C-alpha cells in the first residue's frame, strides 16, 4: 500500500523559430455568472517518440481531455471529426484544418518512454488567432506518475484559457462506505481528484469520520472511534502510520483541521456534555481553549492566512456561522438567512466560505462572503453536506446521502456558480471528502 514518490521537473522549451508571437486575445473563458457556451477543443493522441510510448501517448491525451470536459467549460471535438492529424510535434500546425471543425483550442503533445522514465511535452494553440498560447512545456518523471503529468498539462491549458489556476493535479481523501444505514462500515480512502488510484488508508473495524489534508498534502487528520470514544488521529500518507492526539479521559475530540502552517490543529473537544473549540500544537501537544460557552461550538476552519477561524455555534439558539481571531476572542456572526448553517470551510482564495445549510427539510451546499453577504445556494437535496474546496477555489466537492432504508452516500462536485453538478466515481459509497492542495 505504499504511495509513489513522484519527481517532476519542469523545463521550458522555447517556441519553435518562425512561429508567431503568442497572444492572449480571443482564446479566453471568463468564468462568470452568465451562461457559458463550452469552448470546443481538440486533443489529438500525443506523438509517441519511442517504441514503448504508444499506449501512454494515447492515455495521456485522454486524461487531458477528460479533465477539461469535467470542468463543464470545454467541449471536445472528437477524433472522428479531424480533417488532418498531428504527425510531428514540432511541425507547423495546419490551422485551417482545425478552424474548419471549430476546434478553437488545440492541444498537441509528445511522449517519450525509456524504461520507467517518462517525458511529456505539450503545446497549446489558439486556432483562430493562428498562434501558440503560451510556451510549450516539458515534464519529466516516472511512468507510474503518468496521470499526474496529464493533469499538469490540463492544469496549464485550463489556467492559460481561464486565467484561473488549475486544480487537476490534486487528490481527495474521504470516507469510503458500505452497508445499510444501521450497519455502515467506514474506512479512510485516498484517490486522485478524478477517482483514479484509490487506496484505502484504514480498515473498517472502527468508525472513522471527516479526514482533512495537511497544507503540504502529506498528512491527514481524522476522527476515529477505535478507542471506543471519538479521538483525533494524524496519519502520514506515505507510511500509513498514525498516532493519536491525546485528550483527557472522559473527553471526546473530533472535527480537526490543520492551520495553514501545518503546525497547529484546531478541533472540537467535548467535556461534561459541552463542546468547545481548541487548538493544539501538533509537535508539543500543548492545547489552548478558544471558546468557552455552554453552547455547541464545532466544525472550525482556518482562513488561508491563518489569522482567523470560521466555525459553527448554536449560541443564538440554532446553528449559525461565526468568525473569530485564530487566538480566540470575540466571535462575529456571519450567517443571517432562514435556516441553520454548519460545516463552514474557508476557500483557499480567502474570499468565500462554503457551508451546509438546512431549511424547510432540505439540505443545501452554499457559499457566502466572509461578511455574510452574497449568500448563494449551489445544491438542494434530501441530505447534502460537508463541502471541501478545490485548490483553485472554483469547484466544491461534497457528499449526498439519499433518503430511506436503502439510502447511500455519493461524492459530488459542483462549480461555485452552481453549474456542472456531477458525481465523483468511487468504488463504494463516499462521504466527508477533503481536497488536497495542488501537488508540486
Amino acid at each position, binding site marked *: 500500500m505504499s504511495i509513489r514518490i513522484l519527481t517532476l521537473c519542469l523545463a521550458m522549451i522555447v517556441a519553435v523559430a518562425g512561429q508567431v508571437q503568442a497572444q492572449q486575445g480571443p482564446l479566453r473563458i471568463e468564468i462568470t455568472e452568465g451562461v457559458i457556451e463550452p469552448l470546443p477543443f481538440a486533443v489529438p493522441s500525443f506523438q509517441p517518440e519511442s517504441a514503448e510510448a504508444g499506449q501512454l501517448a494515447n492515455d495521456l491525451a485522454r486524461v487531458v481531455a477528460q479533465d477539461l470536459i469535467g470542468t463543464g467549460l470545454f467541449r471536445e471535438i472528437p477524433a472522428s471529426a479531424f480533417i488532418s492529424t498531428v504527425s510531428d510535434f514540432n511541425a507547423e500546425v495546419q490551422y485551417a484544418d482545425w478552424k474548419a471543425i471549430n476546434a478553437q483550442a488545440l492541444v498537441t503533445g509528445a511522449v517519450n518512454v525509456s524504461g520507467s522514465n517518462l517525458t511529456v511535452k505539450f503545446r497549446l494553440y489558439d486556432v483562430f488567432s493562428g498562434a501558440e498560447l503560451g510556451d510549450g512545456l516539458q515534464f519529466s518523471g516516472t511512468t507510474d506518475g503518468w496521470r499526474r503529468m496529464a493533469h499538469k498539462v490540463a492544469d496549464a491549458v485550463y489556467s492559460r484559457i481561464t486565467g484561473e489556476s488549475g486544480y487537476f493535479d490534486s487528490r481527495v481523501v474521504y470516507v469510503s462506505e458500505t452497508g445499510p444505514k444501521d450497519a455502515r462500515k467506514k474506512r479512510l480512502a485516498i484517490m486522485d481528484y478524478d477517482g483514479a488510484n484509490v487506496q484505502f488508508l484504514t480498515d473498517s473495524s472502527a468508525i472513522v469520520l471527516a479526514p482533512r489534508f495537511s497544507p503540504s498534502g502529506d498528512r491527514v487528520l481524522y476522527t476515529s472511534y477505535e478507542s471506543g470514544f471519538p479521538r483525533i488521529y494524524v496519519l502520514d500518507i506515505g507510511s500509513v502510520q498514525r498516532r493519536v492526539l491525546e485528550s483527557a479521559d472522559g473527553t471526546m475530540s473530533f472535527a480537526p483541521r490543520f492551520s495553514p502552517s501545518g503546525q497547529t490543529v484546531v478541533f472540537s473537544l467535548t467535556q461534561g456534555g459541552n463542546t468547545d473549540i481548541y487548538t493544539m500544537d501538533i509537535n508539543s501537544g500543548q492545547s489552548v481553549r478558544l471558546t468557552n460557552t455552554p453552547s455547541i461550538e464545532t466544525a472550525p476552519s482556518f482562513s488561508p492566512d491563518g489569522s482567523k477561524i470560521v466555525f459553527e455555534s448554536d449560541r443564538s439558539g440554532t446553528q449559525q456561522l461565526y468568525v473569530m481571531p485564530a487566538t480566540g476572542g470575540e466571535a462575529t456572526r456571519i450567517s443571517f438567512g432562514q435556516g441553520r448553517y454548519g460545516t463552514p470551510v474557508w476557500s483557499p482564495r480567502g474570499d468565500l466560505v462554503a457551508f451546509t445549510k*438546512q431549511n424547510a427539510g432540505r439540505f443545501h451546499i452554499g457559499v457566502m462572503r466572509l461578511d455574510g453577504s452574497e449568500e448563494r445556494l449551489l445544491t438542494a437535496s434530501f441530505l447534502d453536506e460537508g463541502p471541501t474546496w478545490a485548490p483553485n477555489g472554483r469547484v466544491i466537492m461534497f457528499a449526498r446521502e439519499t433518503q430511506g432504508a436503502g439510502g447511500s452516500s455519493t461524492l459530488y462536485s459542483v462549480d461555485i456558480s452552481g453549474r456542472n453538478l456531477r458525481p465523483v466515481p468511487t468504488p463504494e459509497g463516499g462521504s466527508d471528502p477533503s481536497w488536497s492542495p495542488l501537488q508540486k
Partner: protein
Amino acid sequence: MNRILTVPLLIATLGLAACTDPARFGADGTGAGAGSANALNGGIVPGSASDPTSPAYFQQTIGDRVLFAVDQSNLTPEGQITLDGQAQWLLSNPDYQAVIEGHADEQGTREYNVALGARRANAVREYMVSKGVPGSRMRVVSYGKERPIEICSDESCYAKNRRAVTVLAGGLTS
C-alpha cells in the same frame, strides 16, 4: 410497584436457594441450575429479564434508553421515570459500570450531531448523579448520527434514533 413487592420475596427465596445451589452466586449467572431454581424461587430464571439483578432486567423491564425531541437534550417526564429505575438498579447492583451512549437522527450535519449526542448522554449522566449514582461509575460517549437503529427517513424512525442508551459493563456475570 412490582419491584417493591418482589424484592422481599426474592430475598427469602434466595436465602433458601443458596443452601441448595451455591454456584448460582458465582460467575455463572446463566441459569445453570435453572430447573431447580425455577422450582425454588417462584419462576425467576437467573440472568433473564425476570431476574432483577440481571442486565436483561435492566434493559427490558426498566428500559435502557430514553428518547429526545428534535434538537433537544432535555429529559421528558417519561425519560425521568426510566432513569429513576436505572439509577435505582445501579445503586442496587454496585458491581456494574455504565457507558451512556448519546445518539442523534440523520437530520443534521455530522459534527453537530456528535455534539448533540454528547449533550444527551451527559443529561442522562447528570440526572443519575443527582439520584445518587457515583459519577465515577458512568462514562459518556456520543455516536452522533452514525449508529441509527431505525433506518427509514421519517419521524417514526427518527424519534427512535434520538436516544441515550445506558450500556452496562462489569458485574459478576460479564
